[in-house]
Structure formats: C-alpha cells, structure tokens
C-alpha cells in the first residue's frame, strides 16, 4: 500500500466557551490514502465536522498534527495554508455557501481566480464543470434563483474547479430532499471515479454512508 495522502496524528481539539473547556476531539488518529472514499459518521457533537475542518486546515488542532504527503501542516503559516487549500482541497458544505453577489459560473470561477488563473481560463474550466453537472443553462443565474439541489451542484463544481486531489464534504446532502440527495450521492461517486478524487465525507445519512467502502464512527471525540 502506498503512503497516505493525509495523516491526522494524535489530534486533540479543545474549545473554550463561557470559561468552560470542551474537548471535542481526543487524541484522534487517521490515515487517508489516495483515491480512497472515507465516510465519517457520528451523532451531533461527536466532533465529525471539527475533524473535517482540521483535516482541511480550516481550523488548527490544540494538540497533535496533520500531515499532507509527509508535510506537517500544523507548522505552516496562514498564507501557506491558504495556498494549500486552494490547490489541494475542495470543500462542499451543508449550507452550500455560495456567494450571493456572484452568478453560478462566477462562483465556480472564484477558486481558480484566487489561484491566479486568468479570467478566460477560469471561465472555460467553470463552464466545463457546470456542463458536466448539468447546469449549463443555469450558469448565469444568481444563487437566489437556484434550487437547493442546483446550489449544491454549483458548490461541487466550485470545489472541483482547481482540480484538487481531495474533496472534503460536510453533510453535503443534509439540506436536500431525497431526490436531490440521491443525485448528489451519484455525482460524488461518479466524480471520484472520473477525476480520481480522494473523498472524505461527513454525513448523518445512513444510506449515503453504506456506499462508502471505509466508514469511521466518531463518538465523544474518539473513534468508536
């Protein structure tokens, strides 16, 4: 087996709220291999999203470290982490988080433009992805004019525009009806196969979870 693409080593995360310390993650270890599909399950407050955020460098661990291809990300500065997120990671969130001031295609173009890609090239990439996801006709629509499923598909396109190696998704179907949820699930696995993605998904959805070859359960900040 090849070396893991991401490693979480002995990660602890403590939040302070109202003077009280809450230990959300307790010495968690995790190895993720290239082109793997991992599902993280657990009850609310188990620390699933926190782990995903730490894995995606959106948050820093209180203790422990996160490695990407052997590089200790916990030691990197904010600028380097921003670059890492732009180049290596794609995020999909439960609440879509599209930027309301930008049209669908502009939302998809953003990560590419942030990464220094020219507007023309970014537009070509975004257009290709939106077409792939069946949203060509909606590309110039603004988020307020899109349905929940369309929102999430635009968010997926945006996560993929920089051709990342890893796609992290936090409850990507949590806010969708059954039909849209099923479409997004299909989309994830077809993209994984087609683009060779490493998929790490946090979900409550038992049906969605069963489709993953590797399922991990978090309980009270530990692996169960």
């Amino acid at each position, binding site marked *: 087996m090849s070396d893991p693409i991401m490693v979480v080593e002995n990660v602890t995360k403590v939040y302070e709220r109202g003077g009280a310390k809450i230990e959300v993650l307790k010495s968690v270890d995790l190895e993720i291999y290239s082109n793997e599909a991992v599902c993280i399950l657990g009850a609310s407050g188990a620390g699933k999203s926190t782990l995903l*955020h730490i894995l995606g460098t*959106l948050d820093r661990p209180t203790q422990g470290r996160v490695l990407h291809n052997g590089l200790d990300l916990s030691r990197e500065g904010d600028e380097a982490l921003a670059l890492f997120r732009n180049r290596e990671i794609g995020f999909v969130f439960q609440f879509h988080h599209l930027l309301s001031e*930008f049209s669908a295609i502009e939302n998809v173009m953003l990560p590419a433009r942030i990464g220094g890609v020219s507007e023309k090239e970014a537009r070509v990439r975004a257009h290709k992805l939106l077409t792939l996801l069946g949203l060509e006709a909606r590309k110039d629509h603004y988020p307020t004019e899109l349905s929940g499923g369309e929102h999430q598909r635009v968010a997926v396109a945006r996560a993929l525009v920089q051709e990342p190696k890893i796609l992290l998704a936090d409850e990507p179907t949590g806010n969708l009806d059954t039909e849209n949820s099923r479409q997004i699930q299909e989309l994830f696995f077809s993209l994984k196969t087609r683009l060779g993605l490493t998929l790490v998904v946090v979900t409550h959805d038992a049906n969605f979870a069963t489709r993953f070859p590797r399922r991990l359960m978090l309980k009270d900040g530990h692996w169960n």
Partner: protein
Amino acid sequence: MNHIRLHIWMVFRYLREGRRFLSLNLILAVVGVALGVASLVIAMAVVSGYESTLRMTVVNMQGHIVILKHGGIETERAEIEKKVQGAVPELQAMTPFLVLEGLIVHKKKLSGVALEGVEPGTVGLVLSLEKTLIDGDARLGLEKHSGAAGSVAMEASETPPAALVGRGLSQKFNLKVGDEFRLVIPITRSRSQEGFRPKTQKFRVGGVLDLGRADYDERYILTDLATAQKFGELPDRISGWRLRLEKDSQALGVAKRLDDQLGSSFWTRTWIDANHNLFQAVKYEKAIIFVIVMLMIVAAAFNVASTLFLSVVRRYSQIGILKAMGVSAVFIQRLFTVQGLIVGATGTIFGLVLGLIGCQVFLWAEKKYGLFPGEVYKLSFVQLEVRPTDLFLILGVALFFCYLSALAPAKRGAKLLPVEGLRYE
C-alpha cells in the same frame, strides 16, 4: 495582475451587492463623505478668499511697500527715487504721496479722514484705483484739478479741486459725484508760536472708490499731490513713496534691502506689516476652521466604518468560504480596505464637485444678500478662492480618514478564522 483584476472585480461586486446599482448604506456613506468634503471646500475657499481679498485690498490701497521718513521728504526726493530704482530690480513702479490728517465737514456732520495727495501720472501704476472705482472717473477726478491747482488760489477757486472718496464716506455723508464738501486740517504755526491753526478747503467729489475694506472706505480721500501740498502748505513735501513689486511675496525681502540701503532716517512698511495681526488671525482661523469642519469628515468616516462593519459581519460566512477556497487574510483585509477607499474617493470627488458648486452659490448669495457686514469683517465683499493646495489637502485628509475607518472592519474580517465564518448562516 490576475490578482489585482480579481480584487477589483470582487470589490465592485461587493459594493454593488451583486446586481443592484448601489446599496442604500453605501449611498448614505458616500453622501456623508461628500457633505463633509463639500463643507471643507467651501470653508477653505471662504477663508482663503478672505485672506486673498484682504491682501488684494491692502496692496491695491497701499502698494507692496511704503517708504516713509519722519518729518517727510523734500529736497532729497529725486536722489532717493534713483537709489530705490537702482536697489530694487523687482520694482514695477513707485509713486510719491502726502498724507494730511483732517476732518470732513458736510451737512452738519463731521468725521476724521486722511487726505492723501497722489501723483496722477504714477499712482495708477502702483494702486489699482480704476479697479476700485464704482462711480465717477478716477483719472478725471485727479487730473481735472491739476491744471487749476498751480494758478488759482484754493479757497477762491470757482471749481473746487476734485477728490476721490471711499464708499463708506460717500454713504455716510450722502456724497455723490459732483457734490462739494469741506475738509479742515491743522496747519502748524511758525516755530516761535505753539499749536495749530485750522485751514479749510472745499473739494468736489470726482469719483467714489470701493476700496474693499470698511476702515479704508470710511477714512480715505484722494486728491492730486499738488493740491494736497498746496492745501497743507507743504510745497515739495511728500510723506513717502508707495512701491509696486512684481510679486506680493517679494515685499519682505525688498523692504529689508531698502532698510539697509536708505539708512536709519527712513523706514519701510510692507503690506504684511500693515495688517500683521489680521493676517496672523486669518491664518490661525483657517487652521481652526479646517480642523473643526474636518470633524465632519471624521464623522462621515465613522459612517463608512459602520457600513463596512455591517458588510463584514453580514459576510462572515462568505469570508469563511473564501478562506476555504484559499483566500489569505491579507486578501480579505485588502478587499474591505479598498471598499472603504472607493467609498471615500467617490464621496470626496462628489464632495469636491459639490463644494465648487457651493462656492458659486455662496458668491451669488453674497452678492444678493451681502453675507459679510463690512464693519464686522473689515471687507465688504470676499472673493472665494479655491486653492489647489487646499483641494489636495482635503482630498488627502478625506482619503486618509476613510482608509483608517476601513482598517478596523477589514482587520476584523481578515482575522476571522475560516471555521468561525462557516458557523454563521
């Protein structure tokens, strides 16, 4: 380059809030800055204009430099004139004058005045009498008498010598062109006798001058030098010369040079010395007004800050997602700082235009309603002066405060952890 384009693209999208033209908050912030800047432009134009008008009226009435000698000048007049001309290459013209203190008596009213005898041939080169003439004829008023003065006894002359009077005197004594009035001056008795004897002379109003300053207008009467010398019984005597230089700013340097060259019996007064306290007061007043009116811009900058704070707080989740996409803290800070600067620059440009329009309205109102009572402000009319240095200073101050006001919200956005931003929905 791509990053700059991205910045500009995002900033304008945020300012427009998507497809809307401009958000109301933003319009109010721009209006606030514009009003502050416009107020400052008008206030500075008024004070600068007051300063310039004051300087102009002083120079027009007194020249750049006055050379005086205690007891007056008689025999050495030609010699001194030659000396001055040789010593002052900046000299454009000089004119002799004689001042007699006296009283104007007319229709049972009297008032203290200064009768100044001026040389008709050169006075126009030094003092701008033509510009200040509001009735009659400046040249006629001075020249008409010059022919008669030498030959005809003053009191017995059928046509009294012509004089130019200030507007204040003309109004106070209801004098119009062609009207006659009397002046009484004290004549020194011979050395053996002490005291003075009064001498009366009739004059005719040849023209009315608006010297721009209430104190000049209520005090000065001009006539030709020969008439004044004869009336004062001071043949060939002059009080001194008035000098016109190429530039106002040369006065102090030239005066110092003249003081050195002419010796201790002569002394010089520049246009600045003549009103030193007033010019100083105006200078301080300008600085104080600038600071006070600038507070309006500071208040407007707070408005910009609150608009940007609102923009940052509303976009917490967007900042989170932008950071998740790989945007750095510096990028976020610049995104909101540039917004603040754009609001500031837009407000400032509108404010400058509004201020210039306001200046025109002010001038119109001044002409129509006379906003400056001459007795209070010394000047009866103030030309507004918009100085480029003032405009640049206002521009700089407005942008500086808008930048400062944008910094705090921008830093707050930049500091936000991506995960904190994502918690907001």
